[in-house]
Structures are given as structure tokens and as C-alpha cells.
């Protein structure tokens, strides 16, 4: 289990990194935290001809507190997000999720941008970003563009990233008033790939009816999966236990879960409804408690 030969580049700037990626094309891979890429290389399943190491690029790291949104540099490590008071205040859903991401040693290296670009269907961050209506800043030699998380993830390990393009930053919008959040996940052991996970935001109006909701699931499709049917079931209703249960059941229409040795598609459907119900319930409770 030793990695194959590759060329190693350590650019001094993002521009140099972009130039290197453009120069080497499809054979090159950006090396961020490397916590998914390097195991794949040790198994010799990933055999990139060249690695462009982004770890020296401080300009890509950092957590910024904007008026309308929280901004995360792509190379911000999971551990920094996990420990950040700013994130806890501005994007509590993200803070609640971080401990589910693998293990402490992995979170000390893993990066936000790397996890999003890798787009593992079982990863937590993509689903949380979709639920949070986050948007990503993509940069290539030809310039920058913003893209909504929802449109960034295009399939199984597939994203809207063009060749030679990097995720450089993430913006997570501030929560609306009377918004509750929750993340629920089941895995065989703490830190394993989720069998199913659910991230949700629920906003109630002054009358306590559901004004808006975002529910995104992981490990139930080719990427993070939004649950429009479940959201529709909540629209304008009082979030009673029955209403939340109905919404959770509606999730079944939104997912096409895979089977593997740890969970059949049928079991994943069960988990998706249970965890969605639990997540919605906690999110609504949070609004109540924060209101009182």
C-alpha cells in the first residue's frame, strides 16, 4: 500500500497553483487536506501524474464574518471550523455537524474546500452547504465565478468545477430570524461514512407556521440530496409532531438510496425518514427555546 510515482509542486500563490493545474490538465490533482486522496493513492486507486499542493497558500485559509454571510477560505481546516466561535454564532448547523466528520486527526488536516470538491455522496459538508443555501467561489486562470451549492454538486463525485478551476471560498448566509437547525446522522461507528445523514433548517413565521425549510440528505443518492417533497409538506403548516412525521415520510419521494454491505436501500429509506423526523423536531424545538 505505497502510492505510485507522481510529480509534486508546491506553488507560492493561488495564481501559480492555477497555472500549474492548467498546464498539467486532467493528470494533475490539487492536494488540499489529502485525507481522501492519499488513502486512494495508497490503495493505488488514484494515480495522478502530478499533485499541486495547496497547503502553503495562507490566502486560501481563514474564517471571515461578513454582514450577510460567513466566509470560509477553501483551505480552512475542519478543526478550525469546529473550534470557531464565529462559525458557532453565524452558522451553528455547520458547528453541530463538524464532530461527525471522521476523527480528530482527520479534521486536523481535512479542509472545507477539499471536502466540497471531492463531493463524496456520504460526506457531511456538501449536504450541510446545500441545506444552508451556501455558495462557492470558483477561480481559474480565466477569472472567478460564484455558484450555488445546490448547482455545484452535479452527480457521483461530480461537480461543476471546470478543469483547472479551484474552489477558493465558501459563503454561508446568515440564518433568518426564527430559524432552527439540526444535523442527524447514523453511521456504524462514530466517524464512519454515514449510512444516512440529514441536515435541516426550519424557519417559522410569527404565527408559528413553517415559513421556509431546507432539508438535505447524504448517502441516499449520487450526491447531497435536497428534499423538495418533504419541504413542500411543511409549507405553511404548524410544525406538530404529525406534520413533521408526514414531512419525514415524504422524503421517500426525494431519494434513491444505494445498497451496500452496511445498509440496504430499504434500510436507508427507513433511516432517512427517522432521521429527518428527528432533525426537524430538534430544529423546531430550537426555535421555541431561542424564542422563549
Amino acid at each position, binding site marked *: *500500500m*505505497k*502510492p*505510485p*510515482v*507522481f*510529480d*509534486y*509542486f*508546491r506553488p507560492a500563490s493561488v495564481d501559480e497553483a492555477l497555472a500549474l493545474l492548467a498546464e498539467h490538465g486532467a493528470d494533475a490533482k490539487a*492536494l488540499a487536506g*489529502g*485525507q481522501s486522496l*492519499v*488513502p486512494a*493513492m*495508497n*490503495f493505488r486507486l488514484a494515480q495522478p501524474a*502530478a*499533485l499541486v*499542493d495547496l*497547503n502553503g497558500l*495562507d490566502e486560501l*485559509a*481563514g*474564517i471571515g464574518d461578513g454582514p450577510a454571510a460567513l466566509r470560509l*477560505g477553501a483551505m*480552512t*481546516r475542519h*478543526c*478550525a*471550523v469546529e*473550534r*470557531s*466561535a*464565529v462559525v458557532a454564532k453565524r452558522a451553528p448547523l455547520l458547528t453541530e455537524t463538524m*464532530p461527525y466528520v*471522521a*476523527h*480528530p*486527526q*482527520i479534521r*486536523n*488536516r481535512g479542509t472545507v474546500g477539499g471536502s466540497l470538491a471531492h463531493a463524496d455522496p456520504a460526506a457531511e459538508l456538501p449536504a450541510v452547504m446545500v441545506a444552508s443555501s451556501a455558495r462557492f467561489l470558483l477561480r481559474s486562470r480565466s477569472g472567478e465565478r460564484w455558484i450555488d451549492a445546490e448547482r455545484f454538486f452535479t452527480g457521483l463525485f461530480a461537480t461543476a468545477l471546470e478543469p483547472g478551476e479551484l474552489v477558493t471560498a465558501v459563503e454561508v448566509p446568515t440564518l433568518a430570524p426564527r430559524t432552527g437547525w439540526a444535523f442527524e446522522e447514523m453511521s456504524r*461507528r*462514530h*466517524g464512519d461514512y454515514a449510512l444516512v445523514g440529514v441536515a435541516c433548517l426550519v424557519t417559522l413565521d410569527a404565527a408559528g407556521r413553517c415559513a421556509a425549510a431546507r432539508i438535505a440528505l447524504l448517502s441516499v443518492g449520487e450526491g447531497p440530496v435536497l428534499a423538495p417533497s418533504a419541504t413542500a409538506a411543511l409549507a405553511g403548516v404548524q410544525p406538530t409532531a404529525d406534520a413533521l412525521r408526514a414531512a419525514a415520510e415524504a422524503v421517500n419521494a426525494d431519494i434513491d438510496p444505494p445498497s451496500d454491505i452496511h445498509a440496504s436501500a430499504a434500510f436507508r429509506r427507513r433511516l432517512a425518514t427517522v432521521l429527518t423526523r428527528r432533525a426537524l423536531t430538534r430544529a423546531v424545538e430550537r426555535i421555541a427555546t431561542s424564542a422563549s
Partner: protein
Amino acid sequence: MSVQAGHVVSLTVNGSPATRTVEPRLLLSDFLRHELGLTGTHVGCEHGVCGACTVLLDGEAVRSCLLFAVQADGHAVETVEGLAAGGELHPIQAAFHETHALQCGFCTPGFLMTLVPYLREHPTPTEQEIREALSGNLCRCTGYKNIVDAVALAARRGAAAGRQGAEAAPARRAGSGAARRGAA
């Protein structure tokens, strides 16, 4: 610069400088064990699950099997060999000995290196917190109970002696600086 073979790596390991010329693909775990002869860092899975190869990079616990040696260039690495300063066991090592927290001892260095920064940042953990902190390290012999006891013992003593600060190595400050840069 493209560097296939012959990439120069200069770093400090347990406080002393080291420079070697290596292939980019050389894993940090193999670099420490076979280039520097620091065989206390063990390799159990080489895909980032078992935690036996855990070392400190700029004070943070990382899997040395998921890093290339070239990535450690200019950084500070600490291994289990660096713990017992002047022959005296580190408080966590001593606690492991007293609570019988090791049997075959193969996974032990990884546990120790995970715990050194953890106890600095969490001087008074609960049992559940300790178990969560250990969840990235696999042990096949002990069933974990005595390891949990060892951490609790070390924490009690550390709290009593108020020595968390005293343990902070320069490399650690660099590490927390990096983390703070993220939070700034």
C-alpha cells in the same frame, strides 16, 4: 518546480533539525521510520483509520500515513520518541503504565500522540469526551477501558499540577498559531 526524485525536505523532528532528499511519494510515516530511524511511530493500515501512525505536525495530531514527507518541509514534527524528556516518562506515558493501558503496545504511540495535544486543549474531559477523542485510534488488545482510565488519571494530575501550559512546546505554539490564523 517539478521534483520527481531528489526533493529536499528540511524539518525539525522532536526539536532537532533534519534534512533528507526524498521521492515526493514517500509517506511521512515511512520517512520517520526508515529515513530517520524513528521506529516508535507504527503503521497499521496506511489508509487513515487505525491511528497507530499518529504524530504531531506543528503541534496537531495527524495521520503520518496520509501525509507525504515533502509536505512536512519547513514544519515541526513530534513523535513518541520525543515524549519522555530526559528519560522521565511524560505524564500520559506514566498514566498508561500505571493503569495497564497497553498490552502488545503496537497502537500505543498513536494513542499517546493523539492525547498529548488533546489534554492540553481539554484539561478536564468527561469519560464520554475521552472516548470520543480516542475514537480515531484502534486498539485490539485492551478493550479501551484502561486507556480511558489512563487519560482520566493524567488529566486529574495535570489539572492538579496545572502543567498543561508547561508542556507547550515551541512547535505547539506554531500549530495553535496556524489554527488561530484560520479563526482570525
